[in-house]
Structure formats: C-alpha cells, structure tokens
C-alpha cells in the first residue's frame, strides 16, 4: 500500500493552485472565486488528515523526497519535502484553521468587492505556510518564510485605502525582515560550516545531535541565536513584537490566520525544527527561555490596558508565543508544540469571535460594547470557551498545554515558573475583562443593531470551540502520548499536582478579580489607575516601545535620509549640473561665432590659415 505521505507535496500545491486560478480569473471571479479557494483548502485539509491518520496508526515510515535544484560543481542545493509526526500535526492544524478561516470569510468578506483577491491571498498564505511546514531543508524553509512574510504584508494591507492599514503592513514587513536577515545569515553560516554543505534537517540533527565538536561552540551559539532572531521576528517576540498588534488593521479572519496557524507559528516551528542546534548550545537555550519568559509577562501586562478588542487578543498572542519560546528554551519541544497546537484552535476561535462581534457592532472599542451576550448567544458562548481555554482553566485545552510548559519550567528553573504563573494570572485577568466588558452588563454604545452572525460564520466558531475543549486531552499529565508522538521519546507525563493546582488557581483568581471589577462592580475600576496613573498610562502606551523605536531608530534614520538626500541634491546633482552647464556655456559662447555671416566664416578661415602659415614658417626657423 502506498502511503499518503508520498502525496504530501499536494497539500501546499492545492492552495497554491487556488491562488493561481483566482489570480488568473481576476476580479471577475467574485464569490465563485471564494468558493474555489475554500474547496481547494478543504481538499488539502482532507489530505492532511489522511496523512496524519496514517502516521497516528503508526503504519507509515517517515517519508522524505527531494531533488537537486541547483548543481554547480561540487555544490548542490536541493529542495524537497519531509513528513514526520511533527509536520503532519502542523499540516492538520494549518489546513484546519485555514479552511475554517476561509469558510468564515465567506460570510465576513461577503460585501467586499475584492473578495476574490482576498481569497487568492489567503490561499497563497496557506500554501506558503504549508510549504514551510513540509520543508525538507533550511533553504526551502527560508524561502517559504519570506513568502509567508509577503503574504502577511498583502493581507494586513488588504484595505490599503486606510492609511493605518498601509502603515501596519509596511511595519510588519520591515520588522519581520530584521528577523529574516538573522535567519539568512544563520543559513549562510550553516552552509559554510556544515559538512558537505548539507542544509537538510536530518543532517543538522546528526551533526549537532551526535557528532558534537564538528562545529565549534561559538559558531553553534551564533547560528542558534541568529535562527532565533528569525523566530523572534516571525513570532512577535520582544523586542520585535511591535508589528503583531499593529497587524490588527487587516481583516479579522486574517488576524485569526496570522495569529493562530501561520505567521506566528512559523517562528516556533522554525526553532522546533532546528532544535538540535539549540540543544548543542546552553547559552542559546537560555536566551530563548529568557526572551520567551520576558515576552510572556511583558505582553500580558500590556494586554491589561488595551481597549481595542483585537489588540487585547494580539497581545495575548504575543504572550502565549512567549510561553512557547519559554518551553523551547527549557528544552520541552513537546510542550511548545502542544501549546502551539491548542493555542491555534482557541486563538483562532477568539479572533473569529471578535470578528463576529465587530461584524455586528462595527466598532473595535470594548468600551462601546457591552451586553452583547444576549444578542449574540453563539458568539458569546464560543468566545467564553475560548477565553477559558486561554486563561488555562481545566478542562479546556489551554490548561493542559500551559500546565505542560509550566511543569517543565519548574523542573528547569523556578524563576521561569514564577514568571509563567504571574503571566497566567494576567492572562486570565485581561480575558475576563474583555469577556465581561463585551458580552455582559449594559450596552454602552450604538449596539442596538447587534445581531448574531450568519451560519457560515458561526459554524467555524462551533467547530473551534469544540476543539478548544477537547484538544487538550491528547496530552495530560497522566498520558503523554502526544509529546512522545511528536518528539519520539517519552519526556512528558510529569506527576506534579502542585503545578496543576497552582496554574488552575491563578487562572480562576484572575477571572474572579475580573468578574469583581468588570461585571459585579464590587471593586472599583479605577482601583489601580487612581493610585498609580503612571503605571496604567505606561501599559496603555505599551511601555512606549513604539515611541522608543520611533525616536531611537526611525528618527535618526529619517535624519540620515534627509542628510543623504541633501548630499544627493546639492553635491552629486551639483557636480552633474556643473558638467552640463559648463558644456552648454561653452556652446553658447561658440554659437556667438556661428553668426551665419559668410564673411565672418571666411575671416575665421583666413585667420586660421595665417596662424598655420606663421606656425609652419616659425618652425622652419626655430
């Protein structure tokens, strides 16, 4: 029996074909184009499920296939694909979320005149992410990383008539470019130092995993840090997190896609895929863990003070990605992948739910919402499930994965554990704030026309809500088969009940405080802002990171730009203009001689003749 994995290349090719078809059809495709995109994504979802199913049943070997792309002398670059347990899991996550986002967009983008363009971009986005997941070596992975970046640029700036959307798209592209540069340099270094210039993950695994000493420690750390820089850019870790919240200017389904399945997962997946390099360098591991832990708590605190429903979710994504990086940093690849897996579902759910709310009330400001729970029952219930999952309340998915991460953090270093627990408390608090402000209480703004979204939008919500409830059970402290399936060795399955109790307790505590403040009103809302207005302002302005970048990087660069422009205008152009003008001045002078008077010409000729004659005569007598 031939294995489905042999046809894995079809998984990214199907959405890519959808992109090609939609682009060829142009705007005339309309809603038919939207259906083409959705159906082809469904096809690749089915194929991914078949592949994953075969791997789960354990009947298929790891499968990889490649061919030589460039052969120059003894240098060869190959491209290909590889199917492992981890990639098959990612395939399912990406195609599933992508399909649901497609389905949801059929409703959400219904009235947009560029709907077929939108679906074309979404298809290309999914295709690039799937290609990244299937990559057999780092080179193809880099190429797809760039493609993912381009697609996010196109989609964030989809409503390009909005200046904020344009700015956000540019910001996302440029900020992630910084990370990609790191990845590119890492790629060059690897290419240089690896035996036989091999870039495929199997060789990387062999060289860094078993033949220690083949590459020196310093170089290993450098490569790992540079790869991590790429991941920082893509996964929105501090200090390159600034693009992710701004990416909210794009259509909401795109936020769901970027935040759940594609763009941000790329960074975590990148580190997970090149994990042997990190394992070989303790310094790099510490960097990953510290950056992850810091980002987790840093973004969670910002999330507390934001008033845009999508921005709160964006910062929660940054924070949750911090958890994943923390997990990687403390060596728990299964914890990171597990959290990526569950987070994809409940974050997609939350974003699509937020989209449903925005679709209904036409505002993103949570201060203008309130009491929507009665009018939008399905959205409210599913959003609530997503919030509970994100807050880490048992038995929802987020609890199990967060618990796995916290447990491995505790084993590694208690400080990481404390940071994680505090961040989890903040997570629960801001999600409670968000939920109670939006769905509970009295309507505060123009929400009288609020209504439930059409079925095509609520069905994805229901599917994702179901997954947000059950997805966590693939790995509990009592059965670690998911981690074993992903990494190949049984590392999960800790027995620490303390971690479970603590993480559930801080989650519940956060929600309780949120309930007291924002629903019941027992605690006054300005309890913090009255005493420490500076702190709240600091959080509202996101620690002034954007301002800092503006003054430290953007302004000096602008200044340098002006300087160079002036140099170009006055010095370079001046020389050019001088050359031109001197020639034309000589010309003008000479044109005086061209009087058109024949007699003048003859006189000139005779003067010339006389000079010649004198010269010749003079030479004779000299």
């Amino acid at each position, binding site marked *: 029996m031939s294995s489905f994995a042999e046809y894995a290349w079809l998984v990214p090719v199907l959405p890519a074909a959808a992109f090609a078809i939609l682009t060829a059809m142009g705007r005339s495709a309309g809603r038919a184009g939207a259906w083409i995109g959705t159906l082809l994504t469904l096809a690749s979802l089915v194929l991914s499920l078949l592949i994953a199913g075969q791997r789960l049943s354990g009947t298929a070997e790891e499968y990889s296939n490649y061919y030589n792309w460039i052969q120059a002398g003894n240098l060869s670059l190959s491209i290909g694909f590889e199917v492992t347990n981890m990639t098959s899991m990612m395939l399912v996550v990406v195609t599933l979320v992508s399909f649901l986002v497609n389905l949801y967009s059929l409703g959400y983008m219904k009235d947009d005149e560029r709907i077929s363009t939108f679906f074309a971009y979404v298809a290309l986005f999914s295709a690039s992410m799937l290609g990244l997941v299937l990559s057999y070596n780092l080179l193809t992975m880099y190429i797809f990383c760039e493609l993912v970046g381009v697609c996010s640029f196109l989609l964030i700036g989809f409503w390009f008539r909005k200046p904020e959307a344009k700015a956000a798209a540019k910001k996302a592209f440029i900020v992630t470019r910084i990370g990609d540069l790191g990845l590119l340099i890492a790629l060059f270094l690897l290419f240089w130092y690896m035996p036989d210039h091999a870039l495929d993950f199997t060789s990387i695994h062999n060289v860094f995993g078993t033949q220690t000493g083949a590459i020196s420690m310093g170089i290993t750390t450098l490569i790992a840090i540079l790869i991590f820089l790429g991941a920082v850019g893509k996964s929105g870790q501090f200090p390159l997190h600034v693009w992710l919240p701004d990416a909210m200017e794009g259509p909401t389904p795109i936020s769901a896609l970027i935040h759940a399945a594609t763009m941000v997962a790329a960074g975590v997946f990148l580190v997970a895929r090149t994990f042997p390099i990190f394992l070989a360098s303790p310094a790099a591991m510490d960097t990953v863990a510290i950056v992850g832990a810091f980002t987790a708590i840093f973004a969670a605190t910002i999330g507390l003070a934001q008033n845009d429903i999508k921005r709160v979710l964006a910062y929660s994504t940054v924070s949750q990605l911090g958890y994943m990086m923390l997990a990687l940093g403390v060596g728990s690849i299964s914890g990171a992948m597990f959290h990526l897996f569950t987070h994809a579902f409940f974050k997609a759910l939350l974003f699509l739910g937020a989209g449903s709310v925005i679709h209904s009330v036409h505002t993103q400001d949570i201060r203008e919402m309130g009491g929507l729970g009665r009018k939008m029952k399905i959205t409210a219930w599913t959003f609530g499930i997503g919030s509970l999952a994100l807050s880490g309340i048992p038995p929802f998915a987020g609890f199990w994965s967060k618990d796995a991460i916290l447990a491995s953090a505790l084993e590694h270093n208690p400080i990481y554990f404390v940071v994680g627990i505090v961040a989890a408390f903040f997570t629960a608090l801001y999600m409670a704030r968000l939920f109670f402000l939006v769905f509970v209480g009295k309507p505060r703004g123009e929400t009288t026309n609020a209504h439930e979204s059409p079925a095509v939008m609520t069905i994805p919500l229901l599917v994702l809500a179901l997954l947000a409830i059950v997805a966590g059970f693939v790995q509990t402290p009592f059965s670690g088969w998911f981690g074993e399936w992903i990494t190949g060795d049984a590392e999960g399955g800790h027995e620490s009940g303390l971690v479970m109790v603590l993480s559930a307790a801080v989650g519940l505590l956060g929600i309780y405080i949120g309930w007291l403040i924002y629903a019941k009103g027992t605690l006054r809302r300005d309890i913090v802002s009255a005493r420490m207005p500076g702190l709240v302002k600091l959080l509202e302005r996101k620690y002034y990171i954007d301002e800092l970048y503006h003054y430290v990087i953007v302004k000096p660069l602008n200044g340098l730009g002006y300087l160079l422009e002036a140099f170009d205008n006055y010095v370079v152009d001046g020389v050019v203009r001088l050359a031109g003008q001197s020639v034309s001045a000589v010309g003008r002078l000479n044109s005086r001689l*061209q*009087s*058109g*008077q*024949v*007699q003048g*010409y*003859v*006189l000139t000729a*005779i003067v010339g003749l006389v000079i010649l004659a004198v010269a010749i005569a003079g030479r004779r007598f000299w």
Partner: protein
Amino acid sequence: MNMLASYLTLAAVLFCIGLYGALTKRNAIIVLLSIELMLNAVNLNLVAFSKYGVQPSLTGQIFSLFTMAIAAAEAAVGVAILVAIYRARVTVNVDEFDELRR
C-alpha cells in the same frame, strides 16, 4: 630690378585688396567683384612665373586661361544665385544672408 618681384608684389597687393573687399563689403555684387580681383591676382602670378620663373614655359599661361574660363562660369552662377536671392529677399546685402545660422 627683378621683374618677377614687382609682378608678385602687384599680384599680392591686388589679392589683398580683393580679400579686403570680399570680407568687408556688404553688397553681394561687390563681394563677387572682389573675388574676381583675387582670381586675377592669382592669374597674374601664374603668368609672371611662366615668363620669369626658374623654368619658363607656357603652362602657366594656359592655366590662367583655364582660370578665366572658370571665373566666367563662377560669375555666371554667382550672379544667378544673387538674382534668385534678390527675388526671394529683396536685398543683396550680405549681412542679411544668415540662413546658415538657422
């Protein structure tokens, strides 16, 4: 007294007068006349050399006959052009013939 030198001097004087006239006169007909003067100065040289030169021969005189024939043709063409210009521009003033400039 060397006869050749006086002929050559006369020819040089004639040539210079002709050149001066050709360069300075505004009337195109006078310019043409001056050119004839220069040609004749040359003729004078040729004849002088054929008579008093180092190797006297008739070649110089024959040459001057050719020159006269060509000068006649040149004068005919020149005057014809002048007439044509006069019809077009109603002037024979050389100053105003500045088409070369345009």
